[in-house]
Structures are given as structure tokens and as C-alpha cells.
């Protein structure tokens, strides 16, 4: 029972981190970034390839590499599409996503690459009768630390203030002197850092990485961002958390019918969109309806 709750919390935490990464970029430029999954994948690849250098150095390389790739996406593609609408940006990010998947296939091969990152996380902690995995505890702590760090950064720093301003009204923020490219660049870098954190947790759980490593969690985190409210950062993190926790709980309770978890989840998503097209914590700027 405690393990079920902890699993729900740790799943929720990890999806919350992924959704916040997507929500940060969406907030400043209305881009639903499908290619976030490939940021997670490169983080995992870098961890596995460099793990022999020792964990701290490997994590440093993974975080830096992921942030750099996020910036490359912005400069290579999205910066050139500033005037395009959200639908065009979505298709473009779909293209970037497939491009990077094939790129990883060419560089690292189509087969999974395995490696042991932090094997101690698989161990269990015993409290009297109940045992819980270390992994879920570490994940929850990591998610809490990163979410509070992001909260501090967004609420208390000037750059964070600018990101919030740009999220709620990009044009006005620009007119008031917020340097748009800098803010967008910062949002991409932070989404890259969050992607690396997600990569660390996922790769310790799975022990291997393949070109499609990040696709699944990205689709679900996207859903979380949408449910929570596109354009609202707390909403994104909460929505991601809700999706992760829901999946984990459904998996525990549906029993043999757990294969239909996604069906229920996505039907729920459609209902949420129909009732509140802007998401649960909605932001006027993204509301469009017939």
C-alpha cells in the first residue's frame, strides 16, 4: 500500500518534471514541443556513454549536453519560425523529433544501449514490515528539489519574472523591455536541464536507452501540460503530476484491464479539452473555440 502511494508520487513527480519542461517553452512561445522526448533521450544516451567517468561527471555532461541540444533546436529551427502559428510549430517539432530519433539511430544504433547508472537505486529500504524501493524515494526527493528550485527561479529571480511575464502576454512583455530571444533561450535551457533530470530517473529504472526512449513520457507529459493548462507553469507541473499519479494508480487498480489505462486517460483528456479548451488552470491567451 505504501509502495503504491510512493510509486504514484514518484511517477507523478517525474511526469511533473517533464510537463514543466514542456510548459516552460510553451509559455514563452506557444510551442508544444514534441521533441522534448529527444532531449530526454540524449540525456540518457550521454549518461550511459559516459558513466565510466564516474557518476557526478557523467551527470554534468548529460545536463550540459541536453541544455546545448535544447539551445540548438531553438537556434536551428524554432527561432526561424517566430511568426508561425502554434499548429505550424507543433508540426515542426514533430519533424525535429523524428529527425533526432533517426539521428540517434545512425549514431548509437537502433538497438537499446544498456548500462548501469546508479545501481544502488534498485535496492530496498525496510521499515518494519514494509519495504520500499530506494528509486522511488530518490525520485520523489529529486522531483521535490527540482520543482522547488524551479519555483524559486520563476518566482524570485528577474529572469523568472520575465519568463512569467512573457508567458502571460508575450507582446506586452516585449514592449515593456523584456528581451524576447533571451527569455526564450533561457526557457529552452531550463527545459533541457529538466529533461536531463527526467532522463536520469528513467534510465536508472530501465537500464537501457533506444532512439524512441523519450517518446512515451513526452506524449503523456504533453497531455499533462494540456490538462493542467497550457501557458500556466504551475498548471503544467500539476497536470503532469496528475497524469503520472493517475497512470500509476490505474495500473495498480485496473488489474487485468490495465492495458486500457491509456484509453481512459486519453478519453479524459478529450473531455477536459472540450469542457475547458484552455486547460484546468486556464490562460486566456490560448483559448480558441468555435
Amino acid at each position, binding site marked *: 500500500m505504501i509502495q503504491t502511494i510512493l510509486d504514484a508520487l514518484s511517477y507523478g513527480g517525474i511526469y511533473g518534471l517533464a510537463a514543466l519542461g514542456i510548459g516552460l517553452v510553451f509559455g514563452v512561445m*506557444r510551442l*508544444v514541443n514534441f521533441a522534448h522526448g529527444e532531449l530526454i533521450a540524449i540525456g540518457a544516451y550521454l549518461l550511459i556513454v559516459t558513466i565510466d567517468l564516474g557518476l557526478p561527471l557523467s551527470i554534468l555532461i548529460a545536463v550540459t549536453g541536453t541544455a546545448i541540444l535544447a539551445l540548438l533546436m531553438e537556434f536551428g*529551427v524554432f527561432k*526561424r*519560425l517566430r*511568426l*508561425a*502559428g*502554434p*499548429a*505550424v510549430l*507543433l*508540426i*515542426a517539432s*514533430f*519533424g*525535429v*523529433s*523524428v*529527425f533526432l*530519433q*533517426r*539521428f540517434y*539511430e*545512425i549514431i548509437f544504433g*537502433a538497438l537499446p544501449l544498456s548500462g548501469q547508472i546508479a545501481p544502488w537505486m534498485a535496492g530496498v529500504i525496510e521499515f518494519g514490515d514494509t519495504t520500499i524501493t530506494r528509486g522511488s524515494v530518490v525520485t520523489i526527493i529529486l522531483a521535490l528539489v527540482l520543482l522547488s528550485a524551479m519555483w524559486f527561479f520563476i518566482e524570485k529571480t528577474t529572469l523568472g519574472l520575465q519568463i512569467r511575464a512573457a508567458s502571460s502576454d508575450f507582446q506586452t512583455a516585449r514592449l515593456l523591455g523584456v528581451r524576447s530571444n533571451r527569455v526564450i533561450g533561457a526557457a529552452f535551457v531550463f527545459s533541457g536541464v529538466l529533461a536531463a533530470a527526467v532522463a536520469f530517473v528513467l534510465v536508472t529504472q530501465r537500464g537501457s536507452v533506444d*532512439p524512441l526512449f523519450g*517518446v512515451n513520457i513526452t*506524449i503523456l507529459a*504533453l*497531455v499533462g501540460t*494540456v490538462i493542467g493548462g*497550457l501557458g500556466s507553469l504551475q498548471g503544467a507541473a500539476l497536470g503532469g503530476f496528475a497524469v503520472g499519479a493517475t497512470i500509476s494508480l490505474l495500473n495498480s487498480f485496473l488489474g487485468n484491464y490495465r*492495458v*486500457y489505462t*491509456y*484509453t481512459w486517460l*486519453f*478519453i479524459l*483528456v*478529450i473531455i477536459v*479539452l*472540450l469542457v475547458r*479548451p*484552455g486547460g484546468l488552470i486556464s490562460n486566456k491567451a*490560448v483559448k*480558441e*473555440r*468555435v
Partner: protein
Amino acid sequence: MSDDLLRSNQLPGVTRFKWQQLLGPIVVVVALSYVVSGISVTFTFLTEGTLALLVMVLGLQVFIGNSGVLSFGQSAFAMVGGFATGLLTVPVKIKENVLDELWEPLKAINMGIWPSLVIAVVIGAFFAFLTGLFLMRLSGLAAGIATFALLMVADNVFFNWRLIGPGPQVMPQVPKFSFVDESIILAVIVMVVVYLIGISRRGRLLRATREDPLAARALGASVWRLRVLFFTVSGGIAALSGAMYAHHSGAVSARDFYLGFTFTTLAMLVIGGATSMWGAVVGTIAVTVIGQILLEFESGVTIGGLEITLPNGVRGLVIAAALVAILIWRPKGLTGGREFSLRLPFLSRP
């Protein structure tokens, strides 16, 4: 608010029927199909598969191009069409042996390819109508995400529900088309339908809602009704594409119509130009030709004594890069979103 991709430069799009706009693409498709399929059996197979994809891209065009609303949901209807025709035409014996968990009444049914295609289209259109009633309330990004959710639901259901299909396995022994002509005829019919419905009164009204929803409503157009209508037509065409694919490859499974298929067909539409029927044709041909050439290189090609072998994955990489490049530098696609014209069909700058 505006999406360049989905806006036509020929405001407000083609309004009057012109024979060359309809016959041009048909002549190109028919001639190319016969020439290419005449080369060898492998190329006949390729031609049939490409024609099924062309029908899918046309199905996307009729909805996305005219309404300006992004949709990932058509792949779900292709899945419905593929499964429907599979269940209707696979011999009863095979169903009893391979699909033992299938719903009993479905096991007993068996019919020929043509009636089955009709039923598949009707079922696909019905599902599109049913889901469209709700989904067409949404626009922009919400529509994109909701239709994506529809694709996920369809995939999850077809991948697991053994009462209506093979679940994660493949449905084998779907009867194949005997000749390439059958695929060609179907593709031509769809091209005619897509062109005519595009220039019909309702088509022009829907394009008006794409350009300026408020003004179109002021003219008395119900955006929702028009979108539901075109979504339904689009769903029927997508189902036909899925069914054609099943009869082309002789087997069908849920994963045939998942993210890879969705990406390829969407890329074809965008690369060719989403706002015209000719754009769908050009995009399908261009992506297929590039893909086929790179596939040759992936298996090794000797040029001037130098053997060149590209690693696996280059094909997808190049097509994805082409999609992104088109969005950046030529957002209306290769055709500029225009219909076929004898005057410089490619080179005229928008």
C-alpha cells in the same frame, strides 16, 4: 492567430472548376503509376502502397487544407478502415485458427474486396462523424491535441481488444488486389471527390472560415457544421486508405497506422502544400521518390567504382529535415498551395 501553412495565397482559394486543375494531377498520377509499376513486381508493390498513401494524404488535405485545423485523428480512421476490411474479407477458416478470441458474428462474415471497401468507408466516415460532433468544437492547438488523443485511444483499443481484431498481432491473409489498376481507380475517384468537394459551395465556405472565422460566420456559415461535414468525408477517405493498405500488403495491424504513418502522411501533405489537391499529389510523389532513392543508398549503391552505403535511418532523417526546411523556407509547400497549372507549376514564387 494565422497559420501560414494553412493559408492559401490565392485568396480565397480555387473557386471555379477548371478542367486542367482536375485532369492535370489525374494524368500525372495515372501515367506515373503505370510507368513505375511496369518496371518490376517490386515496383508494382511500391506503386500500390504509394497510392494507398496518396489517398490518405488526400483525406488529410480535404480536412486540414480546407478548414485550416490541424488533425492527427485521421490515422485512427485509417486503422478503422484497415481493420474493418480485414475482418470482412479474411477467410472464415483463418479467422477461426488465428483470431480465436474474435466476436462470434464477426468470425462468420466473409465477402469480396469491393463490397468490403464500401462498408469500410461507411464505418470510417461514421466514426469520424461521431467523434467530429465533439472534436470539431475545438480549434487551433486544442484541436491538434484532442485529435492526437483520439489517435492514442484508437491505437490502445485496437492494440488490445481481441474481440474486434488480432490485438498486438497481425491480421494475416487479407486478400490482395489482383492488379495495380484497382488502386489507381480508387485513387482517381478520391482525387475527383476531393477536388469537387473543395470547390463546392461548402468547400469555399469552409475555406472562408479558415481565412476569417468571424467574417464567415457573419455570412451565415456554421463553422462547426462545415467542419463536421469535412471531417466525416476525410474520415471516410482515410478509412479507404487503410483498407487499400490492407489489401496491398495482405495483412494489417494496429501499429501500421501509428506515429510513423501519421508522421509520413502529414509530412507529405506539408511538403507538397496543404491547401491544394495538387499539393497532396506532389508531396506524396516527392517524399516517395526521395525515400526510395535513399533506401537504395541504404542498401548500397556503386557510383563510378565507389561504393556508397548510407546507414539505416538516413531516410527518415532526410524526410524529417525536408519537412522542417519546407516549414521554414517555403511554408506553403512545393506547390505554393496552388492547384495544378500548366504555367510553371513549381517555380512561381508565392
